[in-house]
């Protein structure tokens, strides 16, 4: 369980999140307009940025060094300055938080990696360099790395933003499946995905957050129009 108490973040003068207090028992879907502070919330959860207030993981404030064993963050897009790292080596880095300092990865680590690659059907790509992969394959590799990290919670930051419909469907179903064994926090603009994900919704606007325990109430067209400021046809935006 993750508990946020009076969480507030700011970039310089600009206040991005204001006094957010939520407890995430199970899963959570975070929605909001561009620049509303969704990703800031994710970064605060992983302690990539400084924040005021407190974040408790299972009731305790976790040290940064131990956080990697509790929470994993999957960015929308894979970016690497080292383009030549292979899929297998990249996924192996997910075992870093579990590795003894100054030792090599153990056989157990490597076994976990090859099992995960098999589960996601990534075995054929294992020795390929990251930069040769498509966006869809890269998203799967990021997920594979997150799984080998074996943390309780996984944060997906706009997982389908760069994917074609077929890959989006694949990733959506993987996320849905992961709900069974992990606490999943999904950040997205994809309302179809949010609906399919089927979890309480935290809507962030201008730094404040509204929680919808029952997500059906959020997906009423009138409510969507109210939050996003545009007309909706079901879950789709009306462009006309």
């Amino acid at each position, binding site marked *: 369980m993750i508990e946020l108490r009076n969480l507030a973040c700011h970039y310089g003068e600009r206040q991005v999140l204001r006094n957010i207090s939520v407890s995430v028992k199970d899963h959570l879907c975070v929605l909001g307009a561009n620049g509303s502070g969704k990703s800031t919330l994710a970064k605060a959860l992983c302690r990539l940025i400084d924040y005021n207030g407190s974040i408790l993981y299972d009731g305790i404030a976790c040290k940064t060094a131990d956080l990697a064993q509790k929470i994993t963050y999957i960015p929308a897009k894979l970016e*690497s300055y*080292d383009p030549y*790292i292979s899929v297998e080596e990249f996924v192996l*880095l997910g075992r*870093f938080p579990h590795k003894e300092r100054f030792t090599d990865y153990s056989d157990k680590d490597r076994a976990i990696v090859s099992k995960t690659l098999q589960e996601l059907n990534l075995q054929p790509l294992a020795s390929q360099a990251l930069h040769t992969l498509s966006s869809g394959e890269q998203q799967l590799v990021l997920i594979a790395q997150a799984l080998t990290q074996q943390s309780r919670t996984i944060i997906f930051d706009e997982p389908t933003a760069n994917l074609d419909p077929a890959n989006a469907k694949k990733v959506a179903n993987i996320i849905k499946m992961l709900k069974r064994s992990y606490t999943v926090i999904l950040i997205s603009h994809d309302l179809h995905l949010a609906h399919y994900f089927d979890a309480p919704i935290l809507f962030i606007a201008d730094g404040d957050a509204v929680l919808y325990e029952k997500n059906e109430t959020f997906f009423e067209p009138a409510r969507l129009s109210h939050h996003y400021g545009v007309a909706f046809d079901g879950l789709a935006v009306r462009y006309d």
Partner: protein
Amino acid sequence: MDWRCVMINKVLWLLLIAVALYSPFTGSAALHLNDLLTADALSQRIFFELRLPRVIFAFLAGMILSLGGLLFQTLFRNPLMTPYTLGISSGAVFGAGIAIILGMGSLAFGIAAITLFGFAGAMLTVLLLIWLSRYVKEAQGTSLLLLGIALSLFYAASLMMLFYLGDAVQNDMLIRFTMGSLSVIGYQMPLLLLIAAALLLGMLWRYRYELQLIAISEDHARLKGVNTKGLTLLLLGVASFSVGVLVSLSGPIGFIGLIVPHIVVKLYPIVLHRRILPTALFGGLFLVVCDTIARTLNTQSELPIGIVTAFIGGPFFIYLIIKRSHR
């Protein structure tokens, strides 16, 4: 990798090793293996007290410069970053220059004043860079590079000032120092450099997986629990120390740190932590080869090593910039 690349790699390595083995036998006085075996005293002295220490010194120097380049390029995610582009060597030259102009002889522990002052110059520059980088917003990439360029220009002007103040003999010493030299007598300097090189290689190897995470992105490393700020400072400190030791002993030897990591990544397009050892070896051999060229081109007196590396490195640097802009 296809077989042609593998062949080119093998031939290249063999060539480098062959030249490195041939290196101690060539120079202003050519030696033969027979001279050494037949106990020719002069040849033996030249070989064991001048040539062999020099080849070892050059190898270690190339290793430090290449590893320093690889490390700086990775930490700052900038292919043009090296300890040199950040002005660390200019700082060392300025420090050594002060010692020369003040006319200082030998100092403590049998280490020359030039070396101590050069080392202090390099270290002060690093501290200055760390202090300045706290005031720039985006300390990772371009801003730090610009800071380094500004520092280098400042040091260049300061060096001019020293030339203006110095007499003819001092100025000649200063010019020689700025051209870089791998000339050593005996094993004291190679030993000092061995410590510096072993320290740098050891640290890079020990933190190779942390460095690998940083090479993906800083956030990625932090998400895996790496204290990126602390580690960056530690590794920068060690690399600057090693480069400081080197530059204070040999003077500046440009371009090695810049080009060798790029050549090695072309030879081995593989994950960063597997490139550490090839970079160290290639860098060492490469500088030995450059030094062999410097000693054999002109038999009257050898060409300063800084000139040879700059002649090879300069065009390569331009090639690199053009290639980058085409991406």
